[in-house]
């Protein structure tokens, strides 16, 4: 069961997700140890595989470092749900085969610790704790195809 880790914050930036002091490596396992470190030093300890990060506007703003997505994937985070995403981070997620869930009002609908069940096909989040069903806008088809293929490079290879 996926648990929500809610940060009532806008503009959670790539420096908080993976600080530059760890950018001297691109090893996902190494990066995962420091996932979200400058926002919440306890995150890695608390998060179980499949858990979900929930934030406000402009998640992932700042640097183009894909290391931010690798750190999140490496930490086995199941999904990131945010009111909105910064452009490069959003694109990096798709390119890495990681589905970014855009959900305006997420912070009103999901509380810290809520148990969630996400159905990507239907574009619904079942909030088991609150006993609600929340719809989200599914990714546009071209992006969905990239995510389904497991990322941009796999996608390009398949098309050849």
């Amino acid at each position: 069961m996926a648990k929500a880790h809610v940060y009532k914050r806008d503009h959670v930036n790539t420096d908080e997700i993976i600080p530059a002091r760890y950018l001297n490596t691109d090893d996902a396992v190494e990066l995962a140890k420091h996932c979200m470190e400058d926002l919440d030093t306890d995150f890695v300890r608390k998060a179980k595989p499949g858990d979900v990060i929930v934030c406000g506007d402009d998640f992932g703003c700042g640097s183009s470092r894909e290391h931010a997505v690798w750190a999140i994937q490496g930490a086995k985070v199941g999904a990131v749900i945010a009111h909105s995403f910064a452009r490069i981070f959003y694109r990096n997620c798709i390119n890495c085969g990681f589905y970014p869930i855009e959900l305006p009002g997420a912070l009103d609908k999901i509380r810290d610790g809520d148990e969630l069940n996400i159905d990507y096909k239907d574009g619904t989040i079942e909030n088991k704790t609150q006993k609600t069903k929340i719809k989200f806008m599914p990714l546009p088809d071209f992006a969905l195809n990239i995510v389904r293929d497991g990322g941009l490079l796999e996608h390009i290879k398949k098309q050849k």
Partner: protein
Amino acid sequence: MGMTITEKIMARAAGRTSVKAGELVNANVDMIMCHDVTTPPAISMLREHGVDNVFDPEKIVVTPDHFQPAKDIKSAELHKRLDSWAKEKNLPYYYKLGRAGVCHALLPEQGHIRPGEVIVGGDSHTCTYGAFAAFSTGIGSTDLAAAIATGVLWFKVPASMKFVLNGSLGKGVYSKDVILEVIRRIGTDGALYRAMEFVGPALKEMTMEARMTITNMAIEAGGKNGIVGFDQTTKAYLSGRLKGKTDYTVFESDANAPYVHEDTIDCSKLEPMVAFPHLPSNGKAVGECKGLAMDQAYIGSCTNGRIEDLRIAASILKGRQVKIRTIVVPATPVIWKQAVDEGLAEIFYDAGCVFSAPTCGACLGGFMGILAAGEKCISTTNRNFVGRMGSPKSEVYLASPATAAAAAVEGKLADCRNYL
């Protein structure tokens, strides 16, 4: 309906006569910037996927900058991977240590940026090159890998916002203050997914260096690209400088081009600005915040580490002593040499500053000027997020080189106009 300069460049690169904001296009990429943090992973991805080719070696510029000279063993490994790839692929524009510099200062200076082109780079501040009437945007490592191998990337054509810079900048007020004011007004996601086009008489008066400071920070408002039209200043800067292809196409926005937002800034009314922690949008006029004690001043980066910036800082530091740790970092070797030849290096030495070799270094909290918990730094860089220059408990205040130099002299936030 006409088209904006951004739309025209995207249309040209997509082989179309016209495009509209919101459309998805496959665009040919004209230039790719590669540095030491995001490129080594891109190289590894290409190898893993068995598509280890370079679509056009002439269209790739490589410079280590973030952790150069290597700050530790791990970054040395990154440099080694970058170096052996650049050599193996025989890339003609590989700037090795000694000629390497902060990417966004180096590429224009070395003549790799042409108007009308589509430029991408594995770095968010790639938007800097829009100062040259080009479409330029930052991408991650996977996109970078795809661009290196295929020369093609998909883009959503961004809607454009227009910023009219009216009037004239007063004494002690610079392009950095203008862009901090723009970001203060619209917020750090005010231009999300959009093109930020800058026009107006105050912009026309600016040098290319000053314009680059503005487009550099488009990403700090969430912008996809920042862009400035072509004029005589652009032409003069490019003349005799371009490497490889020396011709280029000039596009300009139609009079009836669509804009989703228009804003006018009266530059004559601006004051020197300081953006408070932890967002570039937290700008305050220096008059409101004078006197706040600082621990360090940092003058450098792709935003304000060019020769013009060092000259401004030196004019304030000349014959004075700094009260706090002050680190001056020319962005490229050419700027470093100019600063030495013009006697600026001596001024910095006499004032008690560190005058370092070109590197991104402390700008991103890498090395060469990291902050301890509780410390405050006045910095000419572009980002003041939590932990950006060191401890998550340190604070970064963004300002122009003049404001940073004045703060260095007083050891606290100060009005640079008292020194000019």
